């Protein structure tokens, strides 16, 4: 046998095997042909991990199992979106039937990729009218290009927590309503201590806890994409006003470097070392769940909640805020999709369940009926968030085919901008638009 034939055969064989195996790398698909009245065990993945939250979801599942004795639910908590994303791609017997996510950022990706099943056929089959059940803004963030692959499972509204004792000490009688008042109050509330701080009025740094730039930016009501789906941040005057205000807030309180250094001394957000709870921040952007934590931790100062201020030229929008929420859906690979739908339907549309769950974990209810329920928590501080959720100017993030990649790009840009390392904001934003568009194109087939 001539010697040259062996080295030729091996690579050809390996190439063929490689391409064959590469082509086979597709996860399994599920079905919606199961009978939901037959005994079955379904798996539910969710992100809740705190003791009280886990108890609340377990109680919800117990109520569901009582109403559907034939369906047993195996609940798996503390599951991140990364795990959901990877597990649903990998498939396998341990994959979940019902999935949920703490963010709306990835809904576009879940719908567009087909990872989460379209729920419209299920709603049609069971005679549910989604437009009557859910507020439109919440339906917007749970669908992508007509594919309703998720439903809202409680919502989150963002507002401003403030230290009333610090306000009184600084002679401030009411929370700021406009950005100008915001900057002035932040300055008054800031107390320096040598090179550092005893307290900062409002820390605008985008890496602080929930301060992702899209959340404060929501106060300007920006439009992220044009009708063709192209990023338009450089074209929107709101973007320049937003970054301008963030810089004013920084400068009024000592500048980025000093604030950033102070931020690195803060404790964990979810612990008693939280900077607002420990009195290091007088005003703080956060979600409605923080109130429950402040009560549980017995904050040593009097606090209250208000909507975040709005731009000076948009006073009519005061009361608005950033909205997001937990979403639930059915995994494409589930072999028990009809049984899974029963759980999704119960968790997301049953008014009594939604109210009980919202009260238990201090989240905003996500159905029209639950939002007006007399059984809802009457705490006026919590009700501020209900009002933010109902405000017509409140903003949700538009879904995108590649999930929250544009938000991550905006965050990345904002980190550089706040550090003063973007010499030309307009040119920087144009480049950011180009990058977001390139990412979108790259994610499309």
């Amino acid at each position: 046998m001539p010697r040259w034939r062996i080295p030729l055969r091996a690579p050809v064989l390996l190439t063929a095997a490689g391409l064959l195996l590469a082509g086979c790398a597709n996860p399994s698909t599920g079905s919606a042909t199961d009978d939901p009245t037959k005994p079955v065990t379904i798996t539910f993945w969710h992100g809740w991990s705190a003791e009280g939250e886990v108890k609340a979801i377990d109680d919800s599942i117990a109520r569901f199992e009582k109403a559907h004795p034939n369906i047993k639910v195996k609940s798996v908590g503390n599951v991140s979106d990364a795990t959901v994303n990877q597990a649903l791609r990998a498939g396998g017997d341990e994959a979940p039937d019902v999935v949920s996510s703490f963010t709306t950022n990835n809904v576009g990706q879940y719908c567009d990729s087909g990872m989460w099943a379209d729920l419209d056929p299920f709603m049609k089959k069971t005679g549910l009218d989604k437009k009557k059940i859910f507020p439109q803004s919440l339906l917007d963030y749970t669908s992508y290009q007509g594919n309703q692959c998720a439903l809202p499972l409680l919502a989150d509204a963002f507002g401003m927590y403030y230290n009333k004792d610090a306000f009184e000490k600084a002679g401030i009688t009411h929370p700021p309503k406009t950005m100008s008042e915001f900057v002035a109050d932040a300055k008054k509330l800031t107390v320096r201590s040598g090179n550092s701080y005893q307290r900062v009025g409002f820390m605008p740094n985008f890496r602080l806890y929930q301060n992702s730039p899209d959340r404060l930016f929501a106060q300007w009501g920006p439009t992220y994409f044009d009708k063709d789906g192209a990023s338009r941040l450089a074209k929107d005057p709101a973007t320049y006003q937003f970054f301008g205000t963030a810089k004013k807030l920084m400068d009024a309180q000592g500048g980025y470097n000093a604030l950033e250094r102070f931020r690195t001394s803060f404790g964990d957000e979810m612990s008693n070392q939280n900077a607002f709870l420990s009195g290091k921040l007088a005003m703080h952007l956060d979600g409605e769940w923080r109130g429950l934590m402040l009560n549980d931790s017995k904050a040593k100062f009097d606090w209250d909640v208000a909507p975040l201020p709005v731009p000076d030229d948009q006073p009519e929008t005061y009361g608005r805020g950033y909205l997001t929420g937990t979403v639930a859906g059915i995994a494409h690979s589930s072999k028990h999709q009809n049984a899974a739908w029963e759980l999704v339907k119960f968790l997301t549309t049953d008014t009594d369940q939604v109210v009980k769950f919202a009260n238990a974990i201090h989240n905003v209810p996500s159905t029209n009926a639950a939002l007006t329920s007399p059984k809802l928590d009457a705490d006026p501080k919590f009700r501020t968030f209900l009002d933010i959720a109902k405000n017509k100017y409140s903003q949700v993030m538009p879904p995108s085919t590649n999930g929250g990649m544009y938000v991550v790009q905006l965050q990345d840009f904002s980190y550089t901008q706040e550090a003063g390392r973007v010499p030309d904001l307009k040119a920087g934003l144009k480049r950011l638009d180009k990058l977001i568009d390139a990412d979108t194109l790259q994610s499309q087939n």
Partner: protein
Amino acid sequence: MAIALSRPARRRLRTLGFLSPWLIGFSVFFAYPLLATVYFSFMHYNQIKAPTFVGLRNWKYVFQDMPLFGPALWNTLWLVVIMVALRVVFGLSLGLLVTKIKTGVGFFRTAFYLPYLAPPVAATVAFVFLLNPGTGPVNEVLSKIGIDGPNWFNDPTWAKPSLVLLSLWGIGDLMVIFMAALLDVPKEQYEAADLDGAGAFAKFRYVTWPSITPIVMFAVVTGVVQTMQYYTQALVAGKIASGVSIGPGSVIQPGYPDHSTLTVPQLVYSMGFQNFNTGAACVLSLVLFAIAMAVTMLLMRKRSGLLAAED
């Protein structure tokens, strides 16, 4: 029914039988992943729908529209040059030190080796805590002697040097290798050099160095390959130092601060398993592979030259 095979065929089968463990390992763990990586670099594949051919689009995306590719490549190469060089110099110096000291040898060898045994994640978390600019003890001590300490892992200028410090702290592996090499240098050569009146530097240059050159090259080549794959410490340092809450729904871009700790392997993971952009992740992997191969080949040729010169 027995099959009659010719003698050359039997020999080939026997040879293949002996080679099969390596052939299987090579095929499954190297050739197939490499071929699949090349294949996917030309495909759009989100790991859920069937791959579709997109030509050079992934390559164009990486080289034209991925702003993080440049910083990631720069950081990786910076670490390869600075970290590997300093680790070799520091490891060799420590090796020399522990072979020279007369008392407490066991204690010093153990003390210098122990940090290497610390799990990388735990060691990195401890370093970020020690070097925290606001509350860390290092800056606290520095301030007591009138020095305004840097922001370490929170400053783009200092983040990579901080990672280098961390790697020098865990130098135990190289110290042991160099110590073994140094103890292996024939004593007669030092005695001959003493008789010739050679000083300490001359003895190192003309006796020690030629004997340990292959070990130095080994340390450099393995150091380069390892640093090209630098991932865990940079990722953990960036995430912890940023102080950003990583909740169940959040995704953060690695490389804090200002992408200064972003390395190509982190970008590969981020692209492949956070963004599910398999094509771009494969392009990045191939670029990394090509650079690692080129650098290693260059060093191996240099090593051959060095050895030939010594011969």
